[in-house]
C-alpha cells in the first residue's frame, strides 16, 4: 500500500488558501463558500420529492426563482472543492475509504455524532448566513464585525462542548 505523504506546513497552506480567496474576490467578486452549496443541493433534492412544499416555503422559493436552486455558483464551487480535494488526496496517497474516529469510539457512535453534528452545524450556518468559509474566512478578510462575532462564538462553543465528545476523538 502506498504510504501517506506528510501534510504541508500550515503557514504555506494558509498563504495558498489566502491567495485563493483573493483570486475569488478579484474574479468572482465574492469570497469562498461551502454551506450555501450544500443547502441548495438539499433544497434541490427536497424539490424533487415534494415540489409543492418547497415552493410554498418563502425562504426556499427564492432559490427557485430562476428555475433551479442548484444552477448556482456556490454549487459549482462545492463541486470544485470536492474535485480539488480529491486530486490533492490522490497525489499524496491519502484517499482511504473508512470512518475516521478516536481509538475509544465505535463506528455507530461516530456516525450518529456526524449526522447530528452536521444537522446542528447546517442549522447554525443558516442562522448566521454563512459558515467557516463564507462568513469566518471570507468576511474576516474584509474585517467584518459579523465575521469576528461568528468566529468567536464558533470556537468558544466548540471548546466548551469538546469535553462532552472527547470519547469520539481521543
Amino acid at each position, binding site marked *: 500500500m502506498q504510504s501517506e505523504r506528510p501534510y504541508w506546513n500550515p503557514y504555506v497552506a494558509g498563504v*495558498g488558501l489566502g491567495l*485563493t480567496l483573493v483570486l475569488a474576490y478579484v474574479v468572482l467578486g465574492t469570497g469562498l463558500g461551502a454551506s450555501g452549496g*450544500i443547502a441548495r443541493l438539499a433544497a434541490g433534492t427536497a424539490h424533487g420529492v415534494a415540489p409543492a412544499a418547497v415552493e410554498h416555503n418563502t425562504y426556499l422559493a427564492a432559490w427557485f426563482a430562476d428555475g433551479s436552486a442548484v444552477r448556482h455558483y456556490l454549487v459549482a464551487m462545492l463541486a470544485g472543492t470536492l*474535485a*480539488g480535494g480529491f486530486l490533492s488526496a490522490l497525489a499524496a496517497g491519502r484517499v482511504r475509504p473508512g470512518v*475516521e474516529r478516536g481509538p475509544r469510539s465505535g463506528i455507530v457512535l461516530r456516525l450518529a455524532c456526524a449526522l447530528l453534528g452536521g444537522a446542528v452545524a447546517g442549522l447554525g*450556518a443558516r442562522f448566521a448566513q454563512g459558515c467557516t*468559509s463564507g462568513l469566518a474566512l471570507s468576511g474576516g478578510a474584509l474585517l467584518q464585525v*459579523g*465575521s469576528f462575532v461568528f468566529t468567536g462564538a464558533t470556537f468558544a462553543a466548540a471548546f466548551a462542548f469538546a469535553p462532552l465528545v472527547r470519547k469520539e476523538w481521543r
Partner: protein
Amino acid sequence: MNLFAQDLLNGPFGLLAALAIGGAFGFWLERAGFGSSRKLTAIFYLQDFAVLKVMFTAMATAAVSLAALAGLGAVDLGALFVPPTAVWPQLAGGALFGIGFVAGGWCPGTAAVGVASGKGDALVFLVGAGAGSLAFAALEPRLRGFLHGGEQPVCSLPESIGLGALPGAVVLLVIAVAASLAATRVERLVARRNP
C-alpha cells in the same frame, strides 16, 4: 469589473470560474490536512493548532492583499459581495455551528474534502448539514424578526473605529502572528505533559 458586480456569477463563465476556484480551495484544504476530522478537532483538545494557524494565515494574507490592491486602485472593495453583519443571529448561529463542528468533526468545506478522501463520516455530516438547512427553512418564517433586526449589509471593524482598511489588515496580521506563536507554545507544553 468582477462577475458579481456584472450579475454574471450564475452564467456559464461564472459557474466555470467558481468551479476552478473551488478546485484550488479544496486543494489547499486537503494539503493542510483538513481532509481528516481527527486533525480538525485536535485543536479543541489543545493538541494540534493547524486549524488556527491556517485560518489566521489565510485571513491575514487575503486582508493585507485586498487592502493593498484597493489602495493601488486595482480592486474596488465597494463592488464586492460582503457577508452581512447581524450580531445576535451570528452569535447564536456560531454557537450552534461550533457544537456541530466538534461533535460532527467537520465544517461544510472540509467535509467536502473529507468525502473526496473517502471518509464516510464526512458524507454523513453533509447529509446532516443538508437536513439542518431544510429545518432552518421550515423555521425561518417565525424567526425573521430575530434574524434580520439590526442587520447591516457592510460593517467593517477598522472603519467603524476610524481606521483605514490597510492599517486594519496589518493589525490582523500582527494578531495572527502572535496567536500562531502562542499556539505553538501550547502545542509543545501539551506534548511534553502527555508524551
